[in-house]
């Protein structure tokens, strides 16, 4: 079952990557990132059956980081939205050359 769990984890991660690359909506990109994090979490949990409890501990940490990231990231999105009136990341091109 470990192998399948890892397969599922990889599949979720790939889908998350795809989402980050092809979507324009900042929130959905964000969700995709959460998806990737979850994929990793899944792998951690699955592997914890083979290496020990540390795997699960890390999932705990990842969730905390995800929570912090969500808080700050969403705050940034709100702040940007106020300025641009959109969450379309193609419009946020201040960094363009």
């Amino acid at each position, binding site marked *: 079952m470990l192998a399948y769990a890892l397969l599922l984890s990889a599949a979720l991660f790939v889908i998350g990557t795809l989402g*980050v690359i092809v979507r324009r909506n900042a929130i959905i990109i964000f969700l995709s990132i959460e998806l990737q994090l979850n994929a990793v979490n899944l792998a951690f949990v699955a592997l914890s059956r083979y290496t020990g409890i540390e795997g699960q501990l890390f999932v705990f940490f990842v969730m905390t980081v995800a929570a912090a990231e969500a808080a700050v990231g969403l705050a940034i999105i709100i702040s940007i939205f106020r300025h641009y009136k959109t969450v379309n990341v*193609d419009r946020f*091109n201040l960094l363009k*050359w």
Partner: protein
Amino acid sequence: MGFAASVPGPHLPVQEVAQWEPVLPGLIILLPLLGFVVNGVLALRSAARSSAALRAGTEWDPFAGPARPRTHTLPTWIGPGVMFVAFVLALWNFAGMYGAELHDPVVVRYWTWIVTGNLQIDAAIQLDQLSMIMLLVVTGVGFLIHVFSVGYMKDDTGYPRYFAYLNLFVFFMLVLVMGAGYAMMFIGWEGVGLCSYLLIGYWFTDREKSDAGKKAFIVNRIGDLGFLLAMFLLFQAFGTLDFGPIFEGAEGRLAAGGATVTAITLLLMLGAAGKSAQVPLHVWLPDAMAGPTPVSALIHAATMVTAGVYMVARSSVLYALAPTSQAVVAGVGVLTALLAATIALQQHDIKKVLAYSTVSQLGFMFLGAGVGAFTAAIFHLMTHAFFKALLFLGAGAVIHAMHHALHRADSHEDAQDMRNMGGLKDRMRITWVVMWVATLAIAGIWPLAGFFSKDEIIWYTAAWAGAPSNPFGTLYTVYWLVALVTAMLTAFYMTRLMVMTFHGESRVDRNARPHLHEAPRVMWVPLAILAVLSVFGGWVNVPEPLAESFLGLFGALPMSEWLHHWLEPVTHDAAAIQTAALGEPAYRAPLVGGGEFAWALASTLAAAVVVLAALRALGGRKYVAAARDAAVSGGLRGILANKWYFDEAFDAGIVRPVLAASRWCWKVVDTVLIDGFVNFVGNFTRLAGWTVSLFQTGQANTYAFVLTLGVLLVLGAAVFL
């Protein structure tokens, strides 16, 4: 090396030779400096008032009030006053030295000026027979000119500034003639150049005048370069720049006629040519006439321009060791004398004529110094100081009168152009008489000063031409002939000046004529004193062959060959070296023979004839007033009127190319090449940066894409490899 480095304590003056104690020699130098400081402060104060008025939109007239402001009365006493005290001190010292039969120079050291590992230069002054003569000339003639200036510059708003500059000039001139080494001399050398610059451009708001000052300074600096390099060579050869060790050791250290001594003397000559306006560096002197006329008398006739002659005479030992340089010096001198005399024939500005006459006479002095007749050169320097100062001051009196008269008549004619003068003798009797005295003196009419001094130079040229082992004998013969011709030209152009100015019909503006009058007493008294000196000044050195004849009043003149003997301690070494190298001079003229007496008599007679002929020929001529006179062009007269095109040649040959090169350096080398390269490097970096910056699309997806790719690359490398 080995010079103990220690924090200096106070230096007390140290005298090295105690056979005669000079009286306050430092004070002689210090007094004019003091005058400069006081007058300078006064000048700044009056200038501040005038500028404040100007800023308020008005003009300040210092003479408008009931009394002249203090800033304009004090310089009258301070300026000439310090000169008088200095002159008295100089006389006192002269008397002391005269009694002491001094053999070696007295050197007074005040403090160490420059000291490094192997070079020590002291702030020291040297008193010997030569510097004493110069001292007397500078302070004496200087004092008279200061007094004259009181009258001449009376109505000038910059009066205190004028005296400040004049005092400063005398200070530097005294440093020049009293310095105990080449380095000290150089201080004075450049210092007088500075004062010349300031005084030529005294009326600095006039573009032409300040241009002239600038030109004088820069041309002088070309000469100074030679002086500087000569000092370097001297330092390399002797390890010192003091006169004493150099002249004592010269014979031992430098091979006679060797490359080093020739180079040193030629470089010194370059310096002298710059300062003393010798061809081709003479171009600044005629322009220098832009300064006030007493300045021309003091700086550009009597003292500063003779510094070169003094320097050559001072370095007589070195020159005696370098016959080639001597021939060059004499050649430059005689060429200058001839060229300047020819130019003087065609000038209309009274000061320009005198300027070229000065250049020409300086050429004579260099001829004398060049052929080894150092005494004769100094003698001519001295008499020339008398009669040329007199001529300039006389011209100053004329210009002063003309200027006032034209001003009164609201005429804008040129107050210096001789074509606007004529017939002044009736209105300016004293000036007319003293000017004639000076003219006859410079023309070499017996028994005036110029006769004896000029004759001696010409005669020594002839005498050394016949010296048995003189390699340049033929050349000297040519010099002698040219000098004779030039002497005649001198008589002619000076007579022309007198005729155009004082004789004939008056061409002065009709309205201005009634206002012409003699200069005030403060101006003509110095003229009179100088006239006396111009008459008797030559009697201090009547040559022996002439002394017993009627030319020497049958031995009645008490000071026959006096100057010669007086300067003997200074020139003795050089004379010995020269005689050893060239042999005894032949005391008869080359080509045709004849002794000094014969040639002296002949030349004064010839000069007299020229003067009389010129009087006759020019006296009856009608001159066209300047305004209506066409400019002369073409032919010899055109060349002369245009001064042999020296200025034009310099302009085309040096000034323009250097300017063009400067522009090229700036616009091409600096801006295009160097900065172009620098900016290219900068722009290249920027371009590279811009290229890379294209990756910065500003789109989050792109960044995610690239980031993922990068992570995959790293992970892939870890996993697959």
